[in-house]
Every structure is written in structure tokens, then in C-alpha cells.
């Protein structure tokens, strides 16, 4: 089977970000999506710690210690951007003002349940951050993740085995093998990477897949 590189996965998500969208990119791979959104799309990035209009990384030596993104990386502000406090930032997230959020995930269920913050390992203190607020609040929630775990186990399942981030919140899943939509009738294939067949992708997917709409 053909599998996209991490870069190509981010590139694929970037293609679907429309001009003028307000977008929140989760920590890790989702953050990379911004690198592939073409310059003619005037996308405004939100960072949960209180920024709209997040710009690229600063030049070395020009970092402002207080100006970081949710992943604690130094960033800059675009002209037209602004700052606000936590209450206002999460009002934006929870209140349905962001057009798109892209999050990583451990598991996604057939009905769009998202598990992204905790495994069943209770030896470490759990961390959730703003993921649950994004999950319920973004108008459109996209997951960007590898189709399977490192051990080859499916991450797309009938029901999540890990604690949920949100119930029935995911709209679309981008993986290295395919793009899937969560629909009322189940997971529908939007596209398959390269020459991958539905049967091949189904074989590494825990939940039934519907063929692309013709």
C-alpha cells in the first residue's frame, strides 16, 4: 500500500483550508499544515493562549519570550492580528467562531468520537489542555493522524478504547492512506492515497468504510 509522508499528509490537509478561514492547528503534526497553505489563501491562525493572526517563527535573536503558540514555540504576529486573554480565546473556540480545527488523535470512532488526550496508562498525570474545547467548539473538526499505530493496529475503530476528547465531534479524518468523512451512515471514503484500494484500506481500518460517493 502507498502511504503519504508526514509532509504530504500536512500538504493534503492544507489543500482543503479555504481562503479567509479562521483556523486552529493542534500541537505536533497539525502545526505543520500552515507550512503548506499557499500564500494566496489568507488564512488567520488562532492560538489558544490568546492570539489571532499567528505569523511564522521569528528570526533568531528576535524571539519575544511571551509570544509563543500553544506548542510553546516562538511565533510572530501578522499585521491585523491581536492578543486577548484566556477567557476570550476559549470563548472563540467553544462559541463556534473558528471555521476549522485540525487535531492529532490516538483513535477516532465510526461515529466521530475523538480520543486524543489520554491512553489507558494511568501511571502518568494526564494532560488535556484545550483539546476538549476545540473538539466541541470548532465548526469543522479535522483529524490528522497515521492510519495505524506503530504496531500496525487500527486507530479508526467502531468505538474508541481510550478516554474520549469529545463525542461525535470529528468531521473528517486525514491519514497517510486515505481521507474519510464521518457521515450519518458511517465512515465514507473521500479519497484513497495513490493506487490504494478500498479493500486494502478497509483491512487496516477497525470500522466499516463506505465507498466514495459517485
Amino acid at each position, binding site marked *: 500500500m502507498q502511504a503519504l509522508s508526514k509532509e504530504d499528509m500536512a500538504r493534503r490537509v492544507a489543500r482543503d483550508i479555504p481562503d*479567509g478561514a*479562521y483556523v486552529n492547528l493542534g500541537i505536533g503534526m497539525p502545526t505543520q499544515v500552515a507550512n503548506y497553505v499557499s500564500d494566496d489563501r*489568507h488564512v*488567520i491562525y*488562532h492560538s489558544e493562549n490568546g492570539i*489571532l*493572526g499567528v505569523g511564522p517563527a521569528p528570526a533568531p535573536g528576535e524571539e519575544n519570550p511571551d509570544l509563543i503558540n500553544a506548542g510553546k514555540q516562538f511565533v510572530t*504576529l501578522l*499585521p*491585523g*492580528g*491581536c*492578543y*486577548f486573554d484566556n*477567557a*476570550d480565546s*476559549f*470563548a*472563540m*473556540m*467553544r*462559541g*463556534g*467562531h*473558528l471555521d476549522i480545527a485540525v487535531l492529532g488523535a490516538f483513535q477516532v470512532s465510526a461515529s466521530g468520537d475523538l480520543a486524543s488526550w489520554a491512553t489507558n496508562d494511568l501511571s502518568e498525570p494526564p494532560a488535556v489542555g484545550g483539546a476538549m474545547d476545540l473538539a*466541541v*467548539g470548532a465548526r469543522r473538526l479535522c483529524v490528522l493522524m497515521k492510519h495505524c499505530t506503530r504496531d500496525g493496529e487500527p486507530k479508526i475503530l467502531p468505538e474508541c478504547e481510550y478516554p474520549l476528547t469529545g463525542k461525535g465531534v470529528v468531521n473528517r479524518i486525514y491519514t497517510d492512506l486515505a481521507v474519510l468523512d464521518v457521515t450519518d451512515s458511517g465512515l465514507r471514503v473521500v479519497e484513497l492515497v495513490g493506487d490504494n484500494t478500498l479493500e486494502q484500506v478497509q483491512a487496516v481500518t477497525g470500522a466499516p468504510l463506505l465507498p466514495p460517493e459517485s
Partner: protein
Amino acid sequence: MINKIGSSMAEAVSVVKDGDVVMIGGFGSSGIPLELIEALRRHAPKDLTIISNNAGVAEEGIASLLRDGLVRKMMCSFPRSKGSVWLQKRYKEGSIEFELVPQGTLGERIRAAGAGLAAFYTPTAYGTLLAEGKETREFNGRGYVLETALHADVALIRGEKGDAWGNLTYNTAGRNFNPSMATAARTTIAEVKQIVEVGDLDPEAVVTPGIFVDTVVLQEGLLDASA
């Protein structure tokens, strides 16, 4: 290019449909989007629900909408001001529905809508007529009233400066309900005194981030023209 600058007051308010819930910013004579209200009056949608702190004075602002018979329901905290007549008239003749909401509860219900909260418990109005029929509950021995989020189809607000991203600042106490109303409507239209270049507003001093604003319209002297 993100460009939220609207071409005219008339076009901006043309999104308002019959039966819409419309929030209108302002407190007393301060921070009222008078030109947007005038454009709305001329657009003349019917059966509106208007949510605003006051109800206009003389023939001005919301009073002109009440006079023209565009309002089915009015929600506010302080409908009477010196010189206000139309709310009283419509109220006495029974031609409008009127709901009185304590000012802080009105503002907090609007904020809750914008912040994605369904409801909250406030101590305001507990044990009074304005809490009658509402759910109440004690927390730590004190009484609270359950109040729900208040959403709108359209919010008409007034800023001082605005840019093409929709960022707004206000003039002194002209903020009042404008920033929270901007967050609580499906469509938010801001009347501003001045349009500035994107990047000209101090990012530390933007009061309403552009994400909450759909259209920014420069004042065009609509009231002078109608005089």
C-alpha cells in the same frame, strides 16, 4: 485578501430578514449604531425581536423602528429615558411583546451565547419578580437564578476605528454592549467612524478581534441625508 469592508449601510443590513432577532449596541446616547438602525428602518423587515439596553428616545434609533411597526418583541433593561415615547405607546396598546431583563443578566446572557455556554446561575434578581417562573438553586447557601444564553441572527454595533479584518476599537464608554453582542450573532455588522489600514491598530488595544465581525461599514451621513 480578507476584506470585510462593506460598501454601504443599506447593503450591510439587507441580510436582516422578517422575524430575525437583532441585537443593537449602545447605552443611553453612547455607542449606538444610529446609521445602521436608520438603514434597517428603511430596509423595513417585519416582526423583529430587538435586544438592546434601551429603547430609543423621541424618534431616534430603536424608537424609529418601534414607531414604524417593525418590532414584534423588545428585550431590554431600561426602556424609558427622558423623551422616550414609542416603547411606552406600543406597550400600552399591547402591540408588542416586552421582556425586561436586568442589565447585567442581559449582558451575561449575550456573552454566554458568544462563548458557547448554554446557561449560568446568577444571584441577580433572586427573590424578585424578574426571577418568577425561572429555575433557582442554592450554592453555598445563597440563591441563584438560572439564565440561558441569548443568541441573535444579526448584531448591529458601533465602533470607533475598524479595519478590513474586522478588528475594532471603541470610543470611551461607547463600548458598553457592542463587544459582547459582536460575539453572539450569526452575522455582526459594525458601523465605524474611521476605517484604518490592516496593521494600524495596536494589537494590544484591539477590543473586538475581527473573528467576531462580518462587515465593517464607514459612517456615510445617512441621518443627515434623511433630515
